[in-house]
């Protein structure tokens, strides 16, 4: 196979972090609840139903909203000057530096191993209802996908259109988008693995599992 797993692993080992910029979702007054360098945790529990660490409170129209961390990591680039200020939508508040764990490393490396079906347009994407049901029903079971299959719905300018898959045939290995999210053009949507490459992919995963220490 043409990827150099050693190089990739070395790359991630030298910098096993991913930075997530935390932006306010809407306007309002910010009250910070964390300090620079503080460790925070993401949602927990079997159903991820316990919210993560409280990062800041955003108050708008008498509604103080508790914004909790979606990631586990360390607070960086905290903008303390925003404390108590009115901010506009999308204002960055801090960065959460997240240390990638084994599963995430596997995920990142797989992106380079799998055939990645990318968003053809900046649009909202959905699975077709039948596919959504099929995937939901049995996550463990492999979902086969062939060229010409209408698997996705692209919602653009209030109009929905069916997308015919045009990559190689294979097993749907990974779903990279959240149902109905606005996806930038070129961002990965699906990760597909050709059936004959499945053993290779398993091998890659196996190797990362043994070589990566959290």
């Amino acid at each position, binding site marked *: 196979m043409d990827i150099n797993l050693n190089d990739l692993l070395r790359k991630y080992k030298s910098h096993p972090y991913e930075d997530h910029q935390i932006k306010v*979702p*809407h*306007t*309002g007054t910010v009250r910070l609840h964390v300090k620079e360098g503080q460790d925070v945790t993401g949602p927990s529990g079997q159903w991820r139903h316990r919210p993560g660490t409280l990062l800041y409170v955003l108050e*708008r*129209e008498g*509604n103080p909203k508790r914004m909790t961390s979606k990631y586990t990591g360390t607070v960086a680039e905290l903008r303390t000057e925003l404390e108590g200020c*009115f901010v*506009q*939508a*999308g204002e960055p508040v801090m960065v959460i530096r997240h240390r990638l764990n084994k599963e995430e490393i596997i995920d990142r490396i797989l992106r380079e191993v799998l055939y990645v079906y990318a968003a*053809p*347009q*900046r*649009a909202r994407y959905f699975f077709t209802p039948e596919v959504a049901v099929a995937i939901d029903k049995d996550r463990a079971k492999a979902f086969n996908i062939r060229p010409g299959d209408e698997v996705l719905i692209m919602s*653009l*300018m*209030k*109009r929905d259109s069916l997308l015919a898959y045009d990559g190689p045939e294979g097993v749907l290995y990974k779903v990279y988008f959240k149902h109905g999210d606005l996806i930038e*053009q070129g961002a990965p949507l699906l990760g597909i693995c050709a059936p004959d490459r499945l053993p290779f992919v398993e091998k890659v995963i196996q190797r990362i599992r043994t070589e990566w220490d959290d």
Partner: protein
Amino acid sequence: MQASQQIYSSPKKTATIFLKNIVKRDKIIIANRGEIAIRIMRACRQLGLDYVVVYTEEDRCSGHVRAATVEKGEDAAFKISNYKDPNEIFSVADHCGATAIHPGYGFFSEDFRFARRATVRNRPISFIGPRWEVIRDLGSKINTKRIAKFLDIPVIPGSDEPIYSEIEAEALAEELFQKQREEGIKRPSILVKASAGGGGMGIEEVTHLDVFRQVYRRIQNYAKRQFGDEGVLIEQCMKDYHHLEVQLLCSRHKEVVHFGTRNCTIQSTGRQKRVEVAPGFDPEYVHYPFDAAKVLDEIVDYSIRLAKEVEYDNVGTWEWIVTRDGKPYLLEVNTRIQVENEISACISRISRQKGPVNLIKEQIRTALGEKLRYSQKHITFEGTSIELRIVAEDVKRGFAPWCGTITRFEFPQEPWLRVYTHVPHDEPYEIPTEYDPNLALAIVWGQDTEEAKIRAKDFLTRTRIEGEDSLGKPIVTNLAYLKQKVDDVLRFL
């Protein structure tokens, strides 16, 4: 309980609106985007009012943001998450000390809850539009129809409240068919609609009484399933008609004037207006099989009658259907400023007042409690005005929206022409996929209809739009379609 009623009616607050004379202290928050935001900004400028605009991430390159920041500085534009989130608008309004909200059209313009909240909140903000009660009452087609019937204003024949009994429904259907036959309508038909529905869902046409029962049951079941209410509306299916509008302006001081009529018959398949013309009919330009001037007078009179009854107090458009034999029927009332308001302004002259009429300016003035300072007798009309809506859409493919980046956008400058666009001329512009791909609005004026038509076509010929989509394919616009449709204005085809 008493306290909660208090929050819904605040006589004191209304009083302050009436007493206010110096409008200049007001600061307007413009809760809209694109060309209407730009037109509202212009009106504010003319009135000497301060303003702020809002925009979303997708619209950061939009012309309205640029114009606002160029004129007023960085603090005049606020980024919000969504134009449709009222909380964002009020949050910004409070932060920047806005005292009035202009909703433009679409978004909150006909949302009585938004208007109500603006009026009754702890820090009240004037809503630039009619009173919320009026928005609510005329926002319901059924209610409007009921009031119109009471005032002997013609409405489309049919039920003015939901029907629940099959026998009652069948009797009404029979009556409607009989009436159409008596009127000599060759292929009579009726529409069966789910009362709780809207937007074209749950509507079926019935052309024979025999199949009525079947259709009725189908719609009833649909309505019950979909909306949990099996009420059904039945009305005559109108075909072969012109879509007319009456432009009214009313003040908070019970003053009512009109700015004539418009004809908005030319629409895309999705019932989107594309070419509008004022006045509504032009008997000097084309012959009508009925007394067109009289019909126009009638619909204006009817509209005013209804406006006075409900104590209408801002700009509003009364939508009418006029059939080929000259019968008018009231369709609905739009309690907001409309895109095409300016063609009415364009053919109107107010004596003793300098400069062209600006209805948005008048709307803001009246909403802030000013008197009109003129009456109907001071308003005269002159010439014909045509509005062209330039949209990036593929007319041949069912008006499918196009998206991509515009690299060149040029149009001629003429004294008889006004173009509104949020698309910048000097840099490429990516059409946001979240909104309709409207590019520009052109308003053409001519001494008469013939001249207006020639000028409109001239404008369309000289306009240049270039761009390409993500696959490198060139832009698709409706320029050719508009050019072809200009010939159809004001005619029954």
